[in-house]
């Protein structure tokens, strides 16, 4: 293998794929990035056995070939090369060393053969749908904060994507929950999504695709099979295993009979919660909301630090209620509301509360109160 490539092109692709590589590995080859040079393209591949990232860039390939080299070291080297340099990659005879040359710098990296490199991405995918990059970004952003970290409930360690029916309209819906709160966001179902199965996309894949979406062109193609999902755009292909589990019947925890409705300006609400919770215990972060006519009084107390109260104006049809929440959970949700109206739909101090954007029905959040 022998090729020449622009440092900037190599750097961009390498940054994308190397972030999949774990810092510590028990299987040595997983620390490596695979390079395939053919037809004027260099294809970089990295994997952790659950997630595979593949990106191709144009290169001047003099001799075709393939090899794997330590991903983080290679990435660090390329990162430190001068901006506009040309990089030569040459596989030494014998195949155990790759020479990286740029200007007057030369590095020799020890390599492992490609035959040992695990392949993840070659399965056939039955379902294909195309989704605007912006929509995918929103599906993720609106829900990812509610994913669970509890390894024992592995089926909650991701976002549940599935086709659903919202009042007669077919939608693609994303749901995440950690057992204390739930976040849901939906968009019109893209073409080809009718037959899609419900899938749970794991946390790491969510984080990686979210980073890539920033640089994405207009549309991202999503392909699905029983146990894998593949995102494809430009020259990037990301394939991830899905979480093998059943997402709980989340519809059951979304309350239907809540009848007390309160509307607040989310910006005022957010900053009031933020201010008041300065006082509360750093682990519990409890705030109390006392709703009385047109006023909501937020309060927090701690025997150590003292107490805080703040009144804010709300529009309210005669609700009288006191309810406690974890302020961090509350802030996670209010941060998602971009319009100038936030609606709380409550039942009582012990039941789930629904929080929504008044001018956007595509997102919905459910939060369990704290008993204070």
């Amino acid at each position, binding site marked *: 293998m022998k090729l020449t490539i622009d440092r900037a092109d190599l750097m961009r692709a390498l940054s994308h794929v190397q972030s999949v590589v774990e810092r510590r590995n028990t299987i040595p080859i997983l620390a490596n990035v695979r390079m395939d040079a053919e037809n004027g393209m260099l294809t970089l591949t990295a994997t952790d056995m659950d997630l595979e990232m593949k990106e191709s860039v144009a290169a001047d390939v003099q001799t075709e070939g393939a090899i794997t080299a330590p991903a983080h070291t290679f990435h660090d080297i390329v990162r430190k090369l001068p901006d506009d340099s040309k990089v030569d990659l040459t596989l030494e005879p014998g195949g155990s060393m790759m020479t990286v040359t740029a200007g007057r710098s030369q590095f020799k990296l020890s390599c492992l053969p490609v035959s040992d490199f695990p392949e993840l991405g070659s399965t056939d995918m039955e379902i294909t749908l195309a989704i605007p990059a912006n929509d995918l970004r929103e599906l993720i952003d609106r829900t990812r904060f509610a994913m669970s*970290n*509890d390894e*024992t409930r592995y089926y909650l360690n991701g976002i549940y994507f599935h086709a659903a029916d919202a009042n007669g309209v077919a939608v693609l819906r994303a749901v995440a*929950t*950690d*057992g*204390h*709160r*739930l976040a849901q966001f939906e968009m019109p179902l893209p073409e080809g999504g009718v037959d899609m199965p419900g899938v749970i996309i794991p946390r790491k894949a969510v984080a990686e695709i979210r980073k890539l979406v920033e640089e994405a062109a207009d549309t991202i193609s999503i392909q699905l099979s029983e146990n894998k999902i593949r995102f494809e755009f430009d020259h990037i292909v990301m394939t991830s295993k899905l979480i093998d589990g059943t997402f*709980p019947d989340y519809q059951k*925890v979304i309350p239907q009979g809540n009848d007390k409705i309160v509307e607040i300006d989310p910006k005022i609400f957010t900053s009031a919660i933020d201010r008041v919770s300065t006082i509360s*215990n*750093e*682990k*519990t972060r*409890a705030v109390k909301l006392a709703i009385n006519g047109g006023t909501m009084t937020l309060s927090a*107390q*701690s*025997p*150590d630090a003292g107490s805080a109260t703040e009144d804010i104006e709300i529009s309210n049809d005669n609700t009288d209620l006191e309810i*406690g929440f*974890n302020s961090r959970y509350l802030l996670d949700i209010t941060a998602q509301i971009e319009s100038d109206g936030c609606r709380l739909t409550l039942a009582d101090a*012990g039941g*789930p509360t629904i929080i929504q954007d008044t001018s956007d029905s595509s997102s919905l959040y*459910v939060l*369990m*109160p*704290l*008993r*204070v």
Partner: protein
Amino acid sequence: MTIIRQLPDNLVNQIAAGEVIENPAAAIKELVENSIDAGAGCISVTLRQAGKSLMVIEDDGIGMSSDDLKLCLSRHATSKMLDDDLLNIGSLGFRGEALPSIASVSRLEIQSRAQGEGDAWIITAKAGAIADISPSSIRQGTRITVKDLFYATPARLKFLKSDQAEMMIIKETLNRLAMAYPDIEMRCEHDDKKTFHYRSETLLERISSVMGRDFQSNAMPIESEVEGVRLSGFASLPTYSRGNARAQYLFVNGRPVKDKLLMGVLRGAYMDVLPRDRYPLVALFVDLEQTEVDVNVHPAKSEVRFKKPMIIRNLIFHGIQNALREHAKTSAGLLPNQTVHFQTKIAQAPKVNYALPEMDFKPQARIAEETQIFPIVDEVESNDITPDYPLGSALAQFHENYIVSQTKDGIVIVDQHAAHERLVYERMKDNYAQSGVKKQILLVPEIVNLSQDHVLMILEHQSLLNDVGVVLEAFGEGAIIVREVPAILADRLNIQDMIKNLADEVEDIGTVDRVTEKINYLLATMACHGSVRSGRRLNQSEMNELLRQMEETPLSGQCNHGRPTMISLSLDDVEKLFKRR
């Protein structure tokens, strides 16, 4: 033709022996208890092959007359139980089962001379066949010789453990009795070697003879009484603990018993001062009305049943907590074996002193205060000030972690990080208790599958769990549904694991302290981050403030991990180090 027949007496005795006399230790226990009940002042035990081939138990008690001797080998014949009331048992033995049981499985010989009588008598039995009595010659008291134990029941013989293992059990058994009766002199010899010899001594001395001499200087006396139940005995300071729970003894009305209640209560009482895997050493004596406790539960009488176990529980718990609180305010003493350790440290000290670059006086305003350290030392030498505070007034800080303070009769060295960590931790616990338990209600209640037994056991503690923030209910057969969890743990709690461990805890020791332990552990971690680290320089008033706070804070003698936060060295100790005494 009948198929049911009455078993012969001999067989009945062998069956009974199987229950009462499980191993040599059980036989020895029965015989030594007889000696104790006979009012002996000195008991000696001589063994060969861990009692398998020979055991001789000799005492100077009231002895038996010739008539008594004839009767003592028949079943259910006893000198005890004078008022025939099984609910009111004042002696160690009461069933009259031991001697006939031992006699039925061995070659037995009893020599005795009753108090005030001139003649001694001997009676022998082989595998239960009793020979006539004949005259003998010993001093007042009784000598029982058991040869070839279990020779009549070869099956039992085969299942005995090695001599060494049986001897361990015997020693443990004798030690328990020895602690219960410190005024009785006890000797034990095995294969011509002395196993132990306890002279008549005080309770604390006897316990220390058994548990090790260091116990004496690290024990706190426990005394309390509630509703006619008296608790006494000794428990170790938290800084003196073991890796297993073997040195935890409970005596009820002078009878050594095993009770799982003890381990649970001790863990609860020491929860904040000992890590989970360390165990205190204790010997506790509960004395109560005979009618409040049933000792006739277990063939070997090693278990008892209390009428009101909760009272006993609370008595022990609070007795120990009070002692801990009292002792935490005084400081942990210097162990004898640490004195040596200390001497070597002192020898190195000067070298390090010169190498301390931080001792340079920096041109700072605060320095004026720090230089005060030295004048104070001068004053002290002329005995001008005698600090009245228990922890004295701070003299200096060395190695940026240790505070030296002079007290009325010595010095105290304080580990500033450990001490401050405890202070912060106690304050956090206070705050947590004050602000009330906040509970995160679960969006999806968690269902935990357990055995139905575990479910019922956990449900018994439902309201206690509710108080610490765990709200749960039964969920059909063999499952529990958890609806709310303590908010402080909400985002790091594995509910399944917690409930399962809780079930084990309830089953093992009957408590549900695990949730509180988890919360305290979290608070302790926060306290560790929120406290003055080692390496931080403290000025005089900061050091004194720390000492004053320690005096006010309960349990300030140990850090959260059970290490001492301070060491006190009396003037005597210091003078000994310099060979002035």
